[in-house]
């Protein structure tokens, strides 16, 4: 692994040093050491623009960026700006804890399956909102509680209707998500590109 020590340098010097080193001798993996967070993020952006995958680390006063490049010969510029620009903000609103009408048992099974499969939407899934009977999916004993917690840990926002929790007397039992109000829900609907109602 090629190591670049850019400590003691201010922006944009660490990026320039990394660039010069890679131009001189292309390496499939590189470790850049800087001494401040801004330089670390700049070097990360630079390496990513050159087709590297990056990991950030911190050892006491040293900030590290470790970059690896799958293709040793020809790094490709890959700012996925285009892709990101096309991504949508999708809001999923669950007003029930059962999917569809008919058999309740089947409805619950489908709902559990639906929420577990929802991660296939990827980063476009932006908000998950629970209202009315839907709030029962967010309390202790819910079959999908672990899945929802997993969502939340991954940075997806889960909003749970406070009025509904209150109505069912479940305020104390909610285990996941942020308690919300109608204003939040309406604003989120307006900001979202797509609202899916279940």
């Amino acid at each position, binding site marked *: 692994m090629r190591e670049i020590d850019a400590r003691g340098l201010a*922006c*944009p010097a660490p*990026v*320039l040093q990394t660039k010069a080193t890679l131009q001189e001798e292309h390496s499939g993996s590189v470790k850049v050491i800087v001494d401040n967070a*801004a330089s670390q993020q*700049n070097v990360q952006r630079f390496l990513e*623009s050159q087709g590297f995958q990056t990991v950030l680390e911190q050892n006491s006063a040293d900030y590290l960026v470790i970059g690896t490049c799958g293709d040793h010969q020809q790094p490709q510029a890959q700012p996925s700006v285009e892709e990101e620009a096309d991504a949508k*903000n999708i809001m999923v609103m669950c007003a029930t804890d059962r999917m569809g009408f008919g058999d309740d048992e089947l409805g619950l099974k489908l709902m559990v399956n639906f929420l577990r499969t929802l991660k296939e939407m990827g980063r476009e899934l*932006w908000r998950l909102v629970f209202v009315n009977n839907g709030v029962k999916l967010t309390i202790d004993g819910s079959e999908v509680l672990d899945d929802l917690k997993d969502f939340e840990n991954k940075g997806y926002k889960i909003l749970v209707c406070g009025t509904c929790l209150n109505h069912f007397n479940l305020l104390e039992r909610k285990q996941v998500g942020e308690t919300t109000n109608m204003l939040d829900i309406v604003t989120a609907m307006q*900001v979202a590109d797509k609202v899916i109602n279940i």
Partner: protein
Amino acid sequence: MVFPTDENVIVGLDRADDAGVYKISDDLALIQTVDFFTPIVDDPYWFGQIAAANALSDVYAMGGIPKTAMNLVAFPVKQMDLSVLRQIIQGGIDKLAEAGVVLIGGHSIEDKELKYGLSVTGIVHPARVLAKKSLRPGDRLVLTKPLGTGIVNTAIKAGMASADLTDKVTRLMASLNRDAAGIMLRFDVHACTDITGFGLLGHLAEMVYGSGVSVRIFSDRMPMIPEALEFAAMGLLPAGAYKNKEFRESMIDFGHRVARSVQDVLFDPQTSGGLLISVGSDQSDALVKALSAAGISDTAKIGEVLEDPKEKIWVV
């Protein structure tokens, strides 16, 4: 800290607005501001112009008319030829003349590092002071200069900006906010600030914090220097952009389709940036039209004020 005040202080330190405002009589108030910095461009004459345009901007952002100015100079007289200082001051004087402002004094000291700036005094009607936080729900937000000067300046330092781009950005930073301010005052404007070191989102956060409203920003309508997006993706961001982000992140919610390089430009510290104007929705189109007609061509409607007391900034 408790800041001293008296009954004639209309805008003081406690409000942390663009400039201080002090009432002299029922129809006259003084606006006072000061700003100075280290060189941001290599050419001393342009540096002088930019420093003056930047210092004057705070008076325009308060809805006032600048009248007089004083120089602040720190100069390494042993290392640098005095002709450099002469060119800087000439740049300042020329920019002040363009604004109809007279230089009436100043002070200089010897210092290891060159610094230049000005203290500017202006006037305004006490009832027509344009504060930062008086946003009203339904207002539209209008920005009068494109973003990205901090990033481009970093790329210039890195030797990666073309001569054309360097020239374009230098002129942009040296351009006065006077015309934009003059036009703005003909409309139903409720609040205004100028975009400088905290970047668009930092200054917007100052407007929103304590205002009791939220705002939505349309990132796809934002006027931006196109090259700034490319340089941002390459990691040519000034450290200030990261500080701005860290400081205000909790107030801001980005939609997933807002690319990282766009977010970076929204936090980019600006030198002598444009005015950010909150105007009644029924007049916003007319304001943008009037600004564009006056040659302020990068003007755009970039957002709207929401009736939401959480004081959030939604960027979509």
